[in-house]
């Protein structure tokens, strides 16, 4: 029923309020993605920032791309850079929570499965650019080409980063938790 994002963005150049359609379509998915990356309060703040930034930059949007999701994820990635340390801090806290059962203060989202602290440790140790590619692929469900567009990288770079990070995750799981099943992960 809805027309493409590109149509709405093009319309917003003459009629700014047409841009609200972009917000309506993508707020939840961007908001949820950022909440998976950061604390709720900070994530919600950044989500609002993503859309105000997108509106300000809409004139540069490539109207040949009907889906604005990669573009919005790219803006989110830029904003996330300023909070990379906060993200790593939370991931390390999650990784440590399971490693040290005597911790008196667990982080807000304490691990509920044995895989979570392992993965948190891996993610915390990744370079920000590598983490971004992995999570846009796994959580954002973007294609190689969409990630390349979002992060302004060559597609080949996206593929190599993804291969590298997948190998790191695979190695960490097989080392730390050999034989673990999917059911165990989902608890």
């Amino acid at each position, binding site marked *: 029923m809805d027309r493409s994002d590109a149509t709405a963005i093009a319309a917003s150049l003459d009629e700014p309020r047409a841009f609200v359609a972009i917000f309506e379509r993508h707020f939840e998915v961007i908001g949820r993605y950022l909440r998976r990356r950061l604390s709720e309060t900070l994530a919600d703040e950044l989500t609002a920032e993503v859309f105000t930034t997108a509106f300000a930059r809409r004139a540069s949007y490539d109207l040949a791309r009907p889906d604005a999701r990669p573009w919005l994820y790219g803006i989110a990635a830029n904003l996330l850079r300023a909070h990379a340390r906060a993200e790593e801090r939370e991931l390390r806290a999650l990784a440590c929570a399971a490693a040290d059962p005597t911790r008196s203060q667990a982080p807000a989202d304490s691990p509920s499965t044995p895989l979570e602290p392992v993965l948190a440790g891996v993610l915390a140790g990744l370079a920000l650019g590598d983490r971004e590619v992995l999570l846009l692929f796994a959580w954002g469900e973007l294609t190689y080409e969409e990630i390349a567009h979002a992060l302004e990288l060559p597609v080949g770079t996206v593929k190599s980063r993804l291969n590298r990070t997948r190998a790191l995750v695979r190695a960490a799981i097989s080392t730390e938790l050999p034989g673990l099943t*999917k059911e165990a992960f989902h608890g």
Partner: protein
Amino acid sequence: MDELDVVRGFRAGVTAPGGLERARALARLEMVIGPAPPPRPRMPRRRFALVVATAVALAVAAALLPGRLGGGHGTGVLDRALAAVSTGPVLHVVLEVPVEQRWLAPGPVHVTVVDLTTNAERPVIARTELWYDPAGHRVHQQETVGGGLLWDVLETPAGSRDNLGRGDLAAGAPQIDPALGAFFEGYKRALADGSATATSGTVDGRAVQWLHFPGSGSGVAEEIAVDARTYQPLLLRAVCPECTRPPVTYRIVALEGVADAAANWTAPTPEEEHAVASFDSAAERTTVASISNELGGSALWAGRSVAGLDLSAVQLVHASTHSAVPPTPANRIASGLGATFVYGSAGGTSYATVAESRTAGFRFSGFNFDVAGGTVRAFGGAPVPPEGQAVVSSTQSDHWTVQLREGGFYVELDSPSRDTALAVARALEPVSSAA
């Protein structure tokens, strides 16, 4: 197990921001882009931040700054207009607007309720009611569409809660929307420097004075029409010279200062948790002869041919709701059946689809209802009307949707033609009676 599965499962239970966060984010966006707030297409619980901000500003200014208005800046009209607004400590605002005017889409928007027998048509009205206590730092806002409560939120210094069960704002200072606060400050400045002005005009043949309030910073200018004789506020609209469409005009039902005891500070009653995070469906071809047996009751169709379109396909739909994204068998909440009848060639220039299910809670191709506040809602949040009436909607000129209930089914009809969609709605009958 694939390592990507592991990554996908990590923090998969994190939920998207809720209605309050959405409203706040949208208010921030609206501060940048323009005036009147549109509703969400599918879950229109949200705050009318800017419009309300103006109304709040008017009455609060009347309550707090009466001396400034009379101080030689005013045109006289402003003084009398504000005098017509009682100055109780709590602002009470009620605004109404046809929902189709608030709704932004790339194409023109239509949302009306049509009587299928008489063809009589009426708009679906969205109503916002707000109480604001600046001294006590409290705001209570209720939003209804078509008479049904959609969103109810109470904000106090101790926190905030709404009817969606959210109560997670930090305690402390009152959490007024940034848009509201900024707009209020801008309005106070306008009062102080005398930049608020008035001009004569007419509305529906009635003499009015339009009070003009300039925007502040990235805020937008707005106007309020007051009756030229009584000075009662009548209409509120944004001013957007660069906009190509006419501004949304809100009817002011109430704009008054009331005693605290007269205000509504009743905390919202949380609705049952909405556990559905995603939908899934799979369709299989079937026949007219067997569809009713498969559905467990006589399906509704429009016959072998309707409005010049022949029946081209019948599908049985297996639909399900899920507690997470993406939908999987493991996170399935409920499953059920639906049916789709296709007339003409779906996706072509002339067609009609009839999608139906006894349960409005599912979603599948051509079947899009919401269940909110215990009410089944059609496009735009309009409650599904009684049998014999239908919600008719469109957000672009070449696609029309008719949603109704009949014979125990919720039914959605889609067609490029409004007339065809309504003709199909009028032709609906049980398959069994036709057979």
